[in-house]
């Protein structure tokens, strides 16, 4: 065993607290970095990664089997890097005996879930191989939720057993059966899945490549095709909201971790200068001294790094599962090998480099200089400040404490930065939670407390997480007007609105516009608070439009839309933009009288209408829901006043990350106080010897960090507010949603006052344990040793 190793091992054993602090800080920082990198990695182009992992098709093309054969299609290779098919395809009506969507579904005959294109994630059960077996397309559920029961379904009126659930990122089918089964179902189209060579970055590029591959086929062979960009656009909108949020937390986490590790390790080396001097006096060469110190800090750092990486891995898994698995992108998301490599190599390297800088300084010092440098802060620092503080009318322990940070300005600066970043995170997380809460409140108010769906006799609606209905569906016998009358007549009903969506051709628009016709108390339900621009309607010739539709259709406030149905026209002026709008497909809102004007003979069935109900203040939602079902068992009603998954997920993310970063920041403070106390043992002993009580010692030490915390808080709050101001609109933009200004105006004096205390709280939390340790210092021993 070398002298260096012996000396390093002895130093590690002797400096148990320092070793523990380095190990703990590196552990927490590594865990933070793993979480941060995994979040950053997951948030960078998640669709593209998941798409690559699924070997997603650039184009899903449907061909007419009467015009072109499967063999002809399989032979098409121009510009194709991989293809799958030909698969028989047919559209059939799906009926379930349990919860879930029903209606027309795309069924494809496939022999297996793998293959060179559109690799399916068969996450439950097995593949359909025999007659009467089907696999349904469904994203894997988050860990916390239950998986669907295997149920029997009917497809096109024939009974099928669901033998598995698979997920196709591209949505190439709603259900799969075996090729033989498909033949029996008489396919109406042949599906081909293509991955192309070269540029496929835009829809136009994909269409050009598809044109090349189908160039030699008979006319009319291609029935329809969908480029992957359509799915990507939808998925990106869902995930987009997460990306700026995760990136913000990720970057903050990285900076906090690096700052804290740097401060702790360099502090440990500086505090050990005296020991360095002793080693030199004993005959260690300067290089050996540097080696001893690098080894001394590396041992706990490596242990902390490994444990921290594993901790981070387990900490980030539920976050990623909650954030991404729900969106069906779990396949490409996780802690990837490069993160392990970066952390397990990078963190010890960072520690070594950080330790190396002061160790080199020690390398240059003579033994005598090193011994004297190690005893206390350099004289002369912060003297003027200390003197002025002494003249203030503050309790002396407080004024003494306030002056301490000025004796070690570099260390104090690092500590301020750590607290600053902690407070920035807490402020951002607080703002984010407040904004989401406000958005949720607005949506809750607008969406009503209760949704009502009359049954058409074929299917029934089930609330998310609710129990499936026990009775088979029966159609309501009531008319639309009677349902509304029923809802108004039940106890506690305050407002009832009827909402009916219908695609209506619009002059100048290539695709029909979804027009959401509303009547009843819709205007009084709170949607006006969702306005992000303009104003609410004042007459039937005006409309407000969901922000997503405004973007998609290139609309702006003031535009006029001409709707045309069965030769009748209605002109509506866009007077406002909404954050989103009522449940269902987003569209433009129009008064029910516009529907009557456009289609006077149209009979609207109650199951086509979506009803919203708001109760009087204090009304019992559960009792109302029960009353609806008692009045007509074929009408389903459920409570919608629950907080959305997105809000829960993001608030969960931000709370966990804010807590993690605050803890790391508090550890930085802890380390600073440990070093300060160690350096000032003699002063503390003297102060106690002249009558400083234990409480006064604690007060002095806490005061020294309270100032650091106050400065960090004062700087961190505006930074957190800035992050909130720029990141949240960016997140909304990524999600293609406009948000009302009111959800951004969430900063009030009491909130800011509490946040201002967050910096002080982080500092005091970190300082408390070493402060109490300082109060217990044995005076005689300290003064004797010094």
């Amino acid at each position: 065993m070398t002298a260096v190793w012996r000396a390093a091992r002895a130093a590690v054993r002797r400096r148990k607290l320092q070793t523990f602090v380095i190990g703990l800080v590196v552990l927490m920082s590594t865990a933070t970095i793993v979480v941060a990198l995994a979040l950053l990695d997951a948030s960078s182009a998640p669709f593209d990664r998941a798409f690559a992992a699924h070997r997603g098709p650039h184009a899903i093309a449907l061909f007419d089997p009467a015009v072109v054969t499967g063999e002809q299609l399989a032979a098409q290779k121009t510009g194709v890097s991989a293809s799958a098919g030909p698969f028989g395809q047919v559209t059939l009506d799906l009926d379930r005996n349990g919860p879930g969507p029903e209606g027309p579904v795309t069924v494809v005959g496939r022999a297996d879930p793998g293959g060179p294109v559109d690799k399916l994630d068969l996450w439950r059960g097995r593949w359909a191989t025999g007659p009467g077996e089907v696999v349904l397309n469904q994203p894997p559920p988050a860990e916390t939720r239950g998986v669907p029961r295997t149920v029997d379904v009917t497809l096109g009126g024939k009974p099928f057993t669901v033998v598995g659930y698979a997920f196709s990122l591209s949505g190439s089918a709603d259900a799969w059966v075996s090729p033989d089964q498909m033949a029996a179902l008489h396919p109406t189209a042949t599906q081909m899945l293509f991955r192309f060579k070269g540029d496929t970055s835009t829809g136009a590029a994909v269409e050009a490549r598809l044109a090349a591959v189908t160039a030699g086929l008979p006319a009319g062979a291609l029935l329809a095709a969908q480029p992957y960009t359509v799915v990507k656009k939808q998925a990106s909108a869902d995930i987009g909201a997460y990306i700026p949020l995760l990136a913000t937390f990720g970057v903050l986490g990285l900076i906090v971790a690096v700052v804290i590790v740097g401060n702790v390790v360099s502090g440990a080396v500086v505090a050990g200068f005296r020991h360095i001097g002793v080693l030199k006096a004993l005959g260690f060469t300067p290089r050996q001294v540097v080696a001893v110190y690098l080894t001394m800090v590396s041992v706990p750092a490596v242990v902390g790094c490994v444990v921290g990486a594993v901790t981070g891995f387990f900490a980030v898994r539920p976050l990623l599962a909650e954030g991404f698995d729900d969106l069906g992108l779990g396949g490409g998301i996780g802690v990837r090998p490069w993160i392990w490599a970066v952390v397990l190599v990078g963190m010890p390297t960072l520690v070594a480099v950080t330790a190396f800088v002061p160790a080199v300084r020690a390398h240059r010092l003579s033994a005598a200089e090193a011994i004297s440098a190690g005893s206390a802060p350099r004289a002369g620092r912060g003297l003027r400040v200390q003197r002025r503080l002494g003249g203030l009318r503050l309790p002396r322990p407080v004024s003494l404490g306030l002056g301490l940070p000025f004796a070690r300005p570099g260390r104090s600066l690092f500590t301020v930065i750590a607290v600053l970043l902690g407070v920035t995170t807490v402020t951002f997380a607080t703002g984010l939670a407040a904004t989401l809460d406000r958005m949720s409140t607005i949506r809750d108010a607008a969406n009503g407390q209760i949704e009502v769906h009359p049954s058409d006799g074929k299917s029934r609606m089930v609330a998310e997480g609710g129990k499936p209905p026990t009775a088979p569906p029966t159609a309501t016998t009531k008319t639309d007007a009677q349902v509304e009358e029923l809802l108004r007549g039940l106890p506690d009903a305050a407002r009832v609105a009827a909402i009916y969506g219908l695609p209506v051709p619009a002059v100048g628009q290539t695709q029909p516009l979804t027009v959401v016709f509303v009547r009843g108390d819709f205007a009084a339900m709170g949607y006006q608070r969702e306005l992000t621009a303009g104003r609410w309607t004042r007459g039937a010739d005006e409309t407000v439009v969901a922000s997503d539709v405004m973007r998609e259709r290139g609309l702006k406030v003031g535009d006029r839309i001409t709707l045309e149905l069965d030769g009748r026209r209605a002109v509506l002026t866009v007077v406002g933009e909404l954050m989103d709008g009522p449940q269902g497909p987003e569209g433009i809102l129009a008064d029910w009288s516009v529907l009557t004007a456009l289609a006077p003979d149209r009979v609207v069935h109650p199951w086509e209408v979506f009803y919203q109900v708001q109760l009087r203040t204090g009304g019992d939602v559960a009792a109302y829901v029960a009353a609806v079902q008692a009045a007509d068992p074929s009408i389903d009603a459920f409570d919608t006043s629950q907080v959305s998954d997105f809000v829960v997920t993001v608030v969960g993310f931000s709370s966990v990350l804010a807590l993690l970063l605050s803890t790391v920041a508090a550890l930085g403070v802890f380390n600073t106080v440990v070093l300060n106390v160690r350096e000032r043992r003699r002063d503390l002993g003297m102060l106690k010897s002249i009558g400083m009580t234990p409480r006064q010692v604690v007060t002095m030490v806490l005061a020294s960090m309270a100032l650091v915390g106050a400065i960090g808080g004062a700087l961190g709050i505006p930074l957190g507010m800035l992050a909130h101001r720029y990141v949240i609109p960016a997140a909304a933009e990524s999600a293609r949603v406009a948000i009302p200004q009111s959800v951004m105006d969430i900063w009030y004096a009491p909130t800011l006052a509490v946040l201002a205390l967050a910096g002080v709280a982080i500092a005091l939390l970190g300082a408390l344990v070493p402060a109490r340790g300082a109060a217990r210092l044995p005076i005689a021993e300290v003064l004797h040793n010094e």
Partner: protein
Amino acid sequence: MTNDVVVRLDGVRKEYGDTVALDGVTLEVRTGEAVAVMGPSGCGKSTLLNMIAGLDRPTGGTIRIHGDDLGRLDETRLALFRRHKIGMIFQFFNLLDDLPALDNVALAAQLAGTRTGPARRRALELLDELGIADRRNAYPATLSGGERQRVAVARALMNRPALLLADEPTGALDSRAGEQVMDLLLDLNQIGQTLLIVTHDERLATRCASRVVELADGRVVRERSLERTP
């Protein structure tokens, strides 16, 4: 000089693991006395001083200072005891490097709650009495050893302690500065300040003390009264 007992030690014992630092020390110091505790290195002198100052707790026996049984005081009361009853002078001065001389002296009163103004006035009086008022704004690093020890003495006297304890007060000083400090201690005793000095300097003892207590292996082996030499 009155006959009130300021310090009463009864069978005081202190062990550090297997090592016995004090072994049944019994001692009294009366008001106005100047007692020197002497002995070879490691005999327990400083340990004895620490016990009397309430800086450390004995393993056995009782220590009473002005009637207070130190063994019955918790840490806070012990700190208050040190603040009000004891003044300490250390071999290496133990001044705060980042405070000027005046504030180092005033500190002892400020910890007791005295406002800055009155504390600084009292500190200035003491520095003036000790002949270093002109150095009141100097930082310890710029003071000579003798000046530092005077500042330390002034700080020790700040709260008018019943007992002044000095641990090798001249040990870190050159002979001239040592002389000055000896004179200072003698003057203090002559105006009634009770003094307990730990030293191995025979000259200091004979100059300042009226009684010498000799320790060896943690025990009092001899006590003798002295005629002070000028």
